[in-house]
């Protein structure tokens, strides 16, 4: 290993450990930004003495390329460094979701669905799982769980049912739904934008695996919770205490507009491989529509953007580019290639299970960002179809995160919401339920990938 490689690895490990150990003192976006600056200064500046590497890592020129705004699904120049397409798209979706929240869309949707199934526990469990899955296909899973968990806790209180089974199953389905599309989960957005896959590419591949898994997961959670669900008796009086879904709409005009913007986002995403619009232009378009519709409330809306997450991504991309441009990730790819002996089956199994296990214990976003160059290199050196490895990585990182309370952001939010309302979910309780479910999905993923692609 040369000096630049040692520095890049040291900064990467230091970033990971600092995020975990010093979160109270240093927010994670500060850590990644600082480590990003160190990468630019030490790895590219001092060790490599390469201005080109710094420019490639910062990647500001991306904004001025045609491919950033308009491109076919598989065209475009590949570069290491900050993935501005991901940042722009996430920002746009954050603004849209904020507008929908302000209008009362999510509260209305949850209560409307609950009313449709007449507030009966088993249909509630299943319909909320499906809703969580579908919403998470288009909206970030944190937002989905923030609302679903809050409504579930409230429903549980008013209907006198234990909300924990529902919250657990909603969390799992949000992560599973996120794996079904390009925009559902940050690892997929990064994989899609970096490797130039479209929404439809994801939907027809990981979406199919997620769909099959969903059927099994609904059965699994029903079997696990059937006794608790069937013992709940809901009276007419309980139902009378519930708010009318229409009363949750804060402003009819804003509500209608936010529904239309959400609909437009879905259509644009589904058709972007046909229209040629990139996710960054969709993000900008959706954000612009939401801001225009918000009128005087636009400033408030923009202020609510989760800037810390965006800065976290920016720093992270720079640190990972340090590993990529110094060739560390090629070494890891070479190692996986040697261990697998060139067998695609073994390669898929290694990537799937290592991604799942790693994502269960560390944040899946840095893991996915790091693994993308690895699978690219693996594909180039071993002559394997890149898309097979991309779907494998997506399923492993998206669903593996469901195994523990800290594996994915949705889990943290769901567990926190439940505990704050007086329903603690310990590590033991969470893992006992979630790990078998993750194993089911991983086995389905492995089977589908083996049968369909190998």
């Amino acid at each position: 290993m040369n000096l630049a490689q040692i520095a890049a690895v040291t900064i990467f490990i230091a970033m990971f450990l600092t995020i975990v150990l010093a979160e109270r003192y240093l927010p994670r976006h500060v850590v990644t930004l600082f480590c990003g600056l160190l990468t630019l200064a030490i790895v590219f500046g001092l060790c490599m003495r390469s201005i080109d590497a710094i420019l490639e890592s910062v990647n500001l020129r991306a904004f001025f390329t045609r491919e950033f705004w308009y491109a076919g699904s598989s065209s475009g120049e590949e570069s290491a460094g900050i993935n501005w397409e991901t940042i722009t798209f996430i920002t746009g979706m954050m603004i849209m979701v904020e507008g929908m929240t302000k209008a009362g869309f999510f509260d209305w949707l949850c209560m409307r669905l609950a009313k449709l199934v007449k507030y009966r526990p088993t249909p509630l469990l299943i319909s909320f799982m499906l809703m969580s899955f579908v919403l998470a296909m288009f909206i970030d899973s944190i937002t989905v769980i923030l609302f679903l968990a809050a409504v579930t806790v409230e429903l549980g209180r008013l209907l006198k049912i234990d909300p924990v089974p529902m919250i657990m199953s909603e969390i799992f389905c949000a992560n599973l739904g996120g794996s079904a599309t390009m925009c559902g989960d940050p690892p997929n957005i990064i994989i899609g934008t970096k490797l130039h896959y479209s929404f439809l590419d994801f939907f027809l591949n990981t979406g199919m695996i997620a769909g099959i898994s969903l059927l099994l997961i609904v059965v699994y959670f029903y079997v696990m919770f059937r006794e608790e669900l069937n013992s709940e008796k809901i009276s007419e009086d309980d139902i009378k205490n519930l708010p009318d879904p229409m009363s949750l709409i804060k402003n009819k005009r804003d509500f209608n507009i936010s529904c239309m913007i959400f609909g437009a986002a879905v259509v644009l995403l589904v058709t972007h491989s046909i229209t040629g619009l990139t996710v960054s232009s969709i993000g900008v378009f959706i954000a612009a529509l939401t801001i225009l519709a918000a009128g005087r409330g636009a400033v408030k809306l923009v202020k609510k953007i989760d800037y810390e997450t965006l800065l976290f991504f920016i720093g992270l991309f720079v640190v990972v580019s340090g590993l990529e441009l110094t060739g560390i990730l090629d070494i890891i790819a070479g190692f996986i290639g040697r261990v697998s002996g060139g067998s695609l089956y073994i390669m898929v199994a290694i990537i799937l299970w290592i991604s799942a296990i790693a994502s269960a214990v560390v944040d899946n976003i840095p893991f996915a960002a790091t693994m993308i160059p690895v699978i690219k290199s693996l594909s180039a050196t071993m002559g394997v179809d890149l898309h097979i490895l991309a779907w494998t990585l997506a399923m492993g990182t998206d669903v593996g995160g469901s195994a523990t309370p800290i594996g994915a952001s949705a889990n943290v939010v769901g567990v926190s919401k439940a505990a704050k309302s007086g329903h603690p979910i310990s590590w033991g309780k969470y893992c006992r339920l979630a790990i078998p479910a993750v194993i089911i999905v991983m086995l389905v993923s492995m089977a589908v990938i083996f049968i369909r692609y190998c």
Partner: protein
Amino acid sequence: MEGQILISLGREFGSGGHKIAQELAKRLDIEYYDENILDKMFGEESDLANEMRDYDERKPNPFLFRRVRGYSSSMEEILAENIFDFVRGKADNGESFIVVGRCGDVILRDYKRHISFFVLGDMYDKIIRVSDRCQLSEREAINEIQRMDRMRKKFHNKYSEIKWGDSRGYDLCINISRLGVEGSADVLFDFIKRRLEMIG
């Protein structure tokens, strides 16, 4: 004594701090919150209170929790915040009480009628007390005292700039081994009386 009385009492494990707190609560005729705070929050002997006891006054393991957009997955942190809200709520309602440990000195610091104490003891006395109470050998008692104090210190220091047991963070620190439980309670009671007279 007239008006609201808010007392926080930090203590070393085995020092007899909770006994002093009980004695003061009796003399002042005010509510006493120690381990029983969970019963008050979640209901007497409820399953939830018992489940939460494992997370009470503990600092979370940094490898076992994460924070996302201000939401923490740590049961220890969530319970601590719930306890802080409960204590603040009682104080805001004008109730008088004594709270043992649980960062009471930190949460109540800005309340005018708050008095904070820290109770310590000689190791020899603490060993005897812990050995008797927990049926432990001398060595085991020492280990238990060190383990519990380490835990309390980590918990306290997570939420406070002023370190656990640092005399600058309390109105009065007292070594219970010098005057015993009764004698120490007398001193603290007298201090409370004079301090409240001064505050008015």
